[in-house]
């Protein structure tokens, strides 16, 4: 275990090296790029397996590494990595899903002229994401956090010539940066209070009991919060931005402008889940009494987002946007689970979701491929007959997402969340929000399936199945979307046991203890209700006619329109935050010109006026007198000069007069 922990950096290293090499590779070397990127990701996945096996062999143990990176004065900030169940599970998930998506991309991006650049960015993302999950230092986590944000920006704007893609990339970066500033503030606060940003460092790390107790007891100086609570809430701001939670969710649907494999990897399976991972990682910080506010915030934000995301998804018509709102909603469930039930509950849904949502996105990509680039579900239909593998895989993903009982992974992980929410003391409202969200989830997936795969084809051309390089990853992910659920059932909670360090035991009885069966029954009912309503409205040929109103729109036009317009959140931000920011900028530029610049101009005008005044005084008071004196002198000079006229007789006369005067003076003057 120590050995694996020591060499853990080798997991993100291959994609990082590949990204560096690809940055310098010519865009014509597509084959070399493909081999390099997929090979590097394969190596990472193999190493991640090794690390996972080592963590599983040392059940419940932890090995951490730290080294000084940023030395300032006599102090230093440390970076490091940690091998524990949390990082091992997450690393394996990221590497495996990543590998599947890399392979799929070979087919999906085959025609793109910037194939090499795509794999360069994608590899950089994989490296940063793997670095994020193995980090043993909040600073390293933040660094990787920002780097995944960068790659997200680069890949959303991959087709930068489309104005919408360029705008979406910018929006994503700036919206998440709003949250990241909270993260950064929490980070420096934590560094200031605890003196260490290493999570685990032989008793002195910031997540270890000594520091946690210290932070929980110390006041933050604001509204009676403890330092731990204030830091936790600030870090949660970062998570809210990255994971697309209310009120910072607006960037994620727009991020669908990126290529579909990017949506699958970054904006569904891994990066957006980094917020959940962050909160799971720093969860020990909230262990003290003073920090319970943070899990509460997670529960409320998560439950509200779960419902709102699902609501909006109901009325979207772009196949990827439906899935994007679904992702927002599912991330809400993860936070709900994390806050109400702890790390294992949230992380289990994160893991299963990563597989089935990646599956759905890749399936959607395959559908888009089949329909010649069409993304509007109203212009699809009957695709199931043309693309059978895609249809089957997509259906599995949809059922996993909806939480169809027993057989699908999403059922078990979502059930654990609802179960935890049911037992959450402070309020029962989050539980009911979660259940309503489950109904809506089944509903919007039914609507999507009906529109896309059933009925008659309404688009142009003939749909076709995708090549095997794209369908095989789908099949693999579909299998995972089924079987992964069985590692976390109440009867045998291997996943929870792995994270908590307890040996799981097989107890069939746990399935009907503590209200587990009631929750399962209720969530089954919710799924059935959602499917039933969906089929009632959209089943068969009801959604068939192109250009016809959506059945739900016919039923409830006002509500449908509001949901279709995403509850007007973007518009609201446009007239408030963005307007205020622009007005402030204009005000600052105006002040620059007229106030600060104006004061200087006024000063210089005053100086010039003073100079003029001096000049006038000089000219008319001082100079005038001087001039008069000069004039007198000049006149005197001219008169004197007139004596010197060069005429000899005048000079002789002068000399004569002089002599006469001298003689007279000498004679009588004494």
């Amino acid at each position, binding site marked *: 275990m120590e050995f694996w922990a020591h060499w853990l950096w080798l997991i993100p290293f291959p994609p990082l090296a590949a990204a560096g090499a690809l940055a310098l590779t010519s865009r014509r070397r597509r084959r070399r790029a493909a081999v390099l990127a997929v090979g590097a990701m394969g190596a990472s996945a193999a190493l991640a397996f090794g690390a996972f096996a080592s963590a599983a062999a040392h059940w419940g143990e932890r090995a951490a590494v730290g080294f000084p990176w940023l030395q300032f004065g006599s102090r230093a900030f440390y970076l490091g990595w940690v091998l524990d169940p949390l990082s091992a599970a997450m690393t394996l998930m990221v590497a495996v899903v990543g590998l599947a998506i890399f392979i799929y991309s070979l087919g999906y991006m085959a025609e793109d002229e910037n194939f090499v650049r795509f794999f360069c960015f994608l590899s950089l993302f994989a490296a940063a994401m793997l670095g994020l999950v193995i980090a043993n230092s909040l600073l390293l986590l933040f660094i990787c956090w920002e780097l995944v944000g960068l790659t997200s920006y680069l890949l959303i704007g991959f087709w*930068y010539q489309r104005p919408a893609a360029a705008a979406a990339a910018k929006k994503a970066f700036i919206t998440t940066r709003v949250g990241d500033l909270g993260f950064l503030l929490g980070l420096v606060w934590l560094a200031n209070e605890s003196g260490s940003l290493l999570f685990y460092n032989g008793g002195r790390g910031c997540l270890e009991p000594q520091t946690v107790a210290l932070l929980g007891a110390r006041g933050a100086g604001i509204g009676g919060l403890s330092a731990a609570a204030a830091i936790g809430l600030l870090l949660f701001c970062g998570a809210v931005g990255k994971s697309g939670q209310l009120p910072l969710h607006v960037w994620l649907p727009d991020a669908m402008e990126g290529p579909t494999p990017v949506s699958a990897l970054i904006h569904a399976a891994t990066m957006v889940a980094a917020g959940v991972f962050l909160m799971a990682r720093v969860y020990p910080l909230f262990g003290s009494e003073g920090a319970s506010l943070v899990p509460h915030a997670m529960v409320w934000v998560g439950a509200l987002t779960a419902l709102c995301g699902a609501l909006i998804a109901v009325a979207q018509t772009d196949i990827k946007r439906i899935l994007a709102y679904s992702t927002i909603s599912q991330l809400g469930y993860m936070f709900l689970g994390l806050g109400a039930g702890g790390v294992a509950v949230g992380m289990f849904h994160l893991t299963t979701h990563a597989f089935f949502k990646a599956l759905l996105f890749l399936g959607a990509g395959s559908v888009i491929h089949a329909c010649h680039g069409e993304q509007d579900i109203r212009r699809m239909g009957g695709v199931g007959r043309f693309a059978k593998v895609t249809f089957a895989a997509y259906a599995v993903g949809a059922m996993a997402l909806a939480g169809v009982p027993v057989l699908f992974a999403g059922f078990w992980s979502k059930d654990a969340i609802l179960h935890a929410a049911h037992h959450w003391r402070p309020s029962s409202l989050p539980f009911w929000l979660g259940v309503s969200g489950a109904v809506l989830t089944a509903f919007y997936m039914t609507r999507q399936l009906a529109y896309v795969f059933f009925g008659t084809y309404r688009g142009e051309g003939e749909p076709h199945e995708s090549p095997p390089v794209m369908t095989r990853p789908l099949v693999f992910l579909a299998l995972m979307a089924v079987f992964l659920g069985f590692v976390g059932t109440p009867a045998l909670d291997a996943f929870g046991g792995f994270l908590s360090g307890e040996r799981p035991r097989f107890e069939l009885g746990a399935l009907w203890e503590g209200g587990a069966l009631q929750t399962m029954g209720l969530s089954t009912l919710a799924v059935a209700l959602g499917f039933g309503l969906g089929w009632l409205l959209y089943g068969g040929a009801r959604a068939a006619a192109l250009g016809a109103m959506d059945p739900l729109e016919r039923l409830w036009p006002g509500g449908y329109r509001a949901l279709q317009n995403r509850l007007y959140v973007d518009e609201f931000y446009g007239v408030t935050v963005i307007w205020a920011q622009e007005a402030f900028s204009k005000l600052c530029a105006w002040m620059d010109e007229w106030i600060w610049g104006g004061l200087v101009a006024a000063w210089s005008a005053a100086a010039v006026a003073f100079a003029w005044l001096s000049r006038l005084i000089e000219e008319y008071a001082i100079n005038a007198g001087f001039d008069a004196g000069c004039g007198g002198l000049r006149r005197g000079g001219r008169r004197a000069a007139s004596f010197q006229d060069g005429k000899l007789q005048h000079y002789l006369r002068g000399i004569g007069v002089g002599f006469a005067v001298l003689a007279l003076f000498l004679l009588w003057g004494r």
Partner: protein
Amino acid sequence: MSWSAAPWLSLLTLTPAVGGLVVLLAPLSPRRAAAFSKAVAALTLLGTLGVLAGFDRGAAGFQLVEQRAWAPQLGMTYFLGVDGLSVLLLPLAAGLTLWALALSGRWLKESRAYGALILLLEAGLMGSFTALNFFHWFLFWELSLAPAFFLIKLWGEGDRHGAAAQFFLYTMAGSVAMLVAFLALFGAAGSFDFPSLAEAARKGGWAPLLERGLRLPAGAGPAAAMALCLAVWLGFAVKIPIAPFHTWLPAAYVAAPTPVTILLTGAMSKMGVYGLARVWLGVFPVEAAQAAPWLLVVAVFSVVISAAAAVAQKDMKRMFAYSSVNHLGYCALALTAVAAASGRAGAEVSRQAAWSGFILQMVNHGITAGALFGFLALFEARTGCRRGLDEFGGLRRAAPVFCGLMGISAFASMGLPGLNGFVGEFLIFRGVFGLAPWAAAVSLTGLLLTAVFLLTMMQRVFHGPLRAEWRGFSDLSARERLAMAPAIAAMFALGLWPNLALMWCNQTVARLAEGAEKILTSML
């Protein structure tokens, strides 16, 4: 004379000074003059690297000290030295000078005076970064002003005469305030040596000294001391500049030939930042601590307001100019926070972080802002000096390498981890948070706004459909890539391995963090 006893720092100043005069006076052809100027700049750069090689990283105090009597009756000594606070500024200034010359082909061809003035400017920079006596320092401080003035006035564009005059007069006004203040200090302490001044004021500040030395009425000392402290601060605030004393900057930066802008922002602004630390905080440790809580408000204001003003700009050069004010604002923020809490117990880690961030940010800003303006110079050469945000679109298609490398510089400016901007700003925020949490929190707005305007720039200029008129926008040539490579390499190197810069100043930083009065006195 042994190797280490040679007057290295004097040579560093003399090389560009003499070289500049030679270029100016000798009857060389412009081509020869250009080559000679570059050779002198390269030699100076080598000299600064030699200084680094001879610099003892394990020592905190002044090194390579040269001290000779000059006019002792007037308090003038010839007194030079470097420590961790200043040593990195030498290669930075020398590198930027060489780089600016490399990008100046157009103007060098025109006149040999251009190269001469740039070298004289460099001499001013070197002199003021190494001087430890007010008289000597002030000479070079003013000396650098004249070449900059003529460079803007003679080779600028647009309203270059107005911009040059405003730049010169505004800075001059600040200098005069400073000069008067130091004459008063000389009257009180009888010396112009910075360390002696600091030593005199170390305990009780300047108030009693001024009362005694200038025979002020009893009780007038504190007010007089504060007035002098603020006068000196003002001189630096104009030079850096700190908003709202920055209005000369957009005009001057935009009017100057872009390579000169590189020098103005990359190196000359550091004279102000460095002076604020060495001279202002060093000579007025007590008064600065009293004024700092108020000046902290000004620093935060500067950070936020300049970033916001940058968002509203439509011209890339003006945008980068405001961005420069914003980035230097972080330096002022760090320093002011340190001044405000210079003696507070238990805040030593925060002070170390703030000082380290301060030094690193000076270097980083020189590299990053220099690179951004450097790309702009290449940009202007392709577009005939057009650089409006709305005039372009999709350039990434025509010139992917150009846009990629300029994008890297923009992200470095935004403080993206992995590139140099992050480490400096992170240390500053870490330090300032421990000293004045509210100031750190409010200043974060600057980071957000920086992302807004730089990403907007990239969206409008690089992305979107390629406009037909720019289809011929050529990508970087091999020579241009070579010219930009050092800056890009430095961004990655410092971002990934910040110790490359910090190792030169860790000892000094540890000493500085003990208290503001150590900036000058304990360094000998």
